[in-house]
């Protein structure tokens, strides 16, 4: 099978061209996933670009993105496939005259025509290149995870009445998890693992500059530095990359080109969403300024 990317550098360049700044780990793992034909499990705090990575990969390869949003109570009928029993019923009723015998009819109503495909099966059956995104997989119960195992390791779906549907082409698969619970060993074993943490200061600055085109380099630099130092505090929820971008946009809209303690205090509610966190950050920003002033 031919590969999507020649090397790691190509992955990185292509991702950059769709405004996703990848570091070594990210570009490396996307490249490996293509070569080894293995899904990528991405874990990390909220708002670090886990879902965005899948979207960007789809965009850069020109593939169709199929997304399965996980939630508690997700089942086979919503994730894999379901029989269109209304249509089946119609078929049976239309045949009241009794011309066809039962076994023939049974074969007929359990054919692909009566199958409703759900995201996972859809991704397997797609003719064109596909990126499959299984979002927030930690939200399903541990028993439901088993649904995913066959598709993740063999790229096939077994339907008792129909047989096995094998993938027409191997899709790139991304699973994201916010780490609210430990995923099962079986699932982890089938995936490549990427922990996506908050970016370091330079990368965050670059991200801000790509996503907020009007920003000056000086301001982007300051934004990245302030966010970095806020993340070092012990908070309930640290500012995510998307919140950083929102903050930078706000600053640009307000026409601010130099952050000082005052502007930071006034706009910090964009970065932080908890009252206690905001208080803490504000206190820290002002207190430290005083302490070090002497």
């Amino acid at each position: 099978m031919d590969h999507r990317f020649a090397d790691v550098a190509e992955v990185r360049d292509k991702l950059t061209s769709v405004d996703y700044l990848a570091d070594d780990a990210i570009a490396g793992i996307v490249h490996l996933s293509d070569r080894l034909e293995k899904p990528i499990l991405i874990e990390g705090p909220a708002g670090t670009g886990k879902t965005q990575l899948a979207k960007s990969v789809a965009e850069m390869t020109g593939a169709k993105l199929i997304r399965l949003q996980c939630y508690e109570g997700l089942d086979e009928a919503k994730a894999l496939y379901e029989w269109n029993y209304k249509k089946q019923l119609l078929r049976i009723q239309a045949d009241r005259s009794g011309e066809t015998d039962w076994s023939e009819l049974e074969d007929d109503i359990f054919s692909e025509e009566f199958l409703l495909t759900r995201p996972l099966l859809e991704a397997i059956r797609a003719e064109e290149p596909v990126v499959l995104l299984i979002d927030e997989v930690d939200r399903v119960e541990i028993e439901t995870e088993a649904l995913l195992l066959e598709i993740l390791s063999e790229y096939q779906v077994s339907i008792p009445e129909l047989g096995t549907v094998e993938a027409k082409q191997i899709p790139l698969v991304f699973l994201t998890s916010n780490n609210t619970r430990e995923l099962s060993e079986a699932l982890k074993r089938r995936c490549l693992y990427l922990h996506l943490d908050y970016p370091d200061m330079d990368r965050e600055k670059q991200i801000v500059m790509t996503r907020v085109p009007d920003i000056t380099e000086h301001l982007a630099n300051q934004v990245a530095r302030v966010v970095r130092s806020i993340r070092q505090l012990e908070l309930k929820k640290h500012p995510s990359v998307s919140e950083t971008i929102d903050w930078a946009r706000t600053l640009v809209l307000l026409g601010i080109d130099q952050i000082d303690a005052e502007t930071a205090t006034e706009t910090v509610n964009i970065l932080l969403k908890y009252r206690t966190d905001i208080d803490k950050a504000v206190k820290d920003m002002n207190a430290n300024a005083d302490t070090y002033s002497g």
Partner: protein
Amino acid sequence: MSTVSKNGSPTESNDVAGEPSPLLDLLSGFIVELRNAGLPVSLTENLDAMEAIRHIPLEDRTALKYALAATLVKNNSHWKAFEIVFDVYFSLRGEEYALDSELSDALLEDDDEDDEQGPPGGADGEKGSGGNSGMTPEELAEMLYNALANGDQQMMRAMARESVRRYAGMEPGRPVGGTYYLYRTLRNLDLDGVLEQLMQQEQDSSEETSQFEQRLKRDEFNDRIEALKKEIESEIRRRLVADRGVEAMAKTLRKPLPEDVDFMHASREEMANLRKAIYPLTRKLAVRLARKRRRGRKGPLDFRHTIRTSLSYGGVPAEPKFRNPRPKKPEIMVIADISGSVAAFARFTLHLVYALSSQFTQVRSFVFIDGLDEVTEFFEQTDDITEAIHRVNSEADVIWVDGHSDYGHALEVFWNNYGKDVGPKTSVLILGDARNNYHAPNSWIIKDIKERARNVFWLNPEPKSYWDTGDSIIGEYASHCDGIFEVRNLRQLEKFADNLA
């Protein structure tokens, strides 16, 4: 491949004659060491790693690292352990990582000749520590200062190397740990002084910078200095590996994984990691309890839903639909010993209680030593865990006579004051070592609680072998509980959470 095998250790070079590549040998050694360090590396993952390295340029050390990490490390808390093992196994490989000074070259040659005995110390070593690069300490300090001021990573790495070479005074075969060398190097560099200097210069150079700006600068310099320390640490590690050989070094660096760290003896840093890991765990507890309630017997018949479904069967209500039982909120009562004998555990316990109360709405928490007090509101009123713990420690009325644990009396107080609140929906969690200082155990109270509550669990932070020795009377309480668990680390706590279901 040539780059990799160039600096290989003698065992591998012997194998080159045969078919198996030295890299595969190295890799399997590496994986064995990961397993020794406690990482659960399965056979499939092992094969994946072998497959993965075929697809990356081997001279690229970063790519190798991430490829191995992607296939072998499936838990972020294991990353640090992985990084250390990786450093040890692959630190001597790769062009730009070669030990460049004369000292290390000498070391390396010796290493190649007789790995077992270790290179003889002496002339080579002294020459190295003499500083033969022609730089005075002042020049070195200045270069280091500049590197830090500009954040020049390349330069910082070079400086880290040079300072270790010069100040650590590493002698081959000397039986001291890396921390000793680290201390020696850092003492000579006086990084605190450098930080002050940097800040001073920052102030002088541009007088109009705001205080806010200065504060950011300080953070940034601090970061760079931390990075430098890391660089120095890994440089020392590299040299130790060259001296002592890979396996020996890996063994000395082995540390328990976060989930295996004993609560009672956790260092501050380990404690911080534990705290982070607690949240997913309490959520798991919450999910376990919630699910148990949602499954099982179905609720009453849902008439509307049944009729709606019957339409697809031509009006025949073939598939009766039931309402889901309304999940009842679990009630949890946590009773925690915070006496001196379990001080370290208590710190952790309070974090657990805090995390629990943010997951469940109905958590009531009690702490005791020889008296008992309710501390629910301390946790409810604030989002700040440190404040809550501070209030528990300073305001809770837990001392009755002398401040030595008295489980009997504490339980009595609980039963008299709060016993009426224990109901059939209540799970009672008792955390403590049951070391009662030979007071009356009053174990009948546990029995009474159990009769009224849904279940009673006891988590004991002591190793099982110590139970019922000395003044520990855990056995006496055990007979009345639904379960007694040894919980000394996260792994065991997780097992307890699993058993709940």
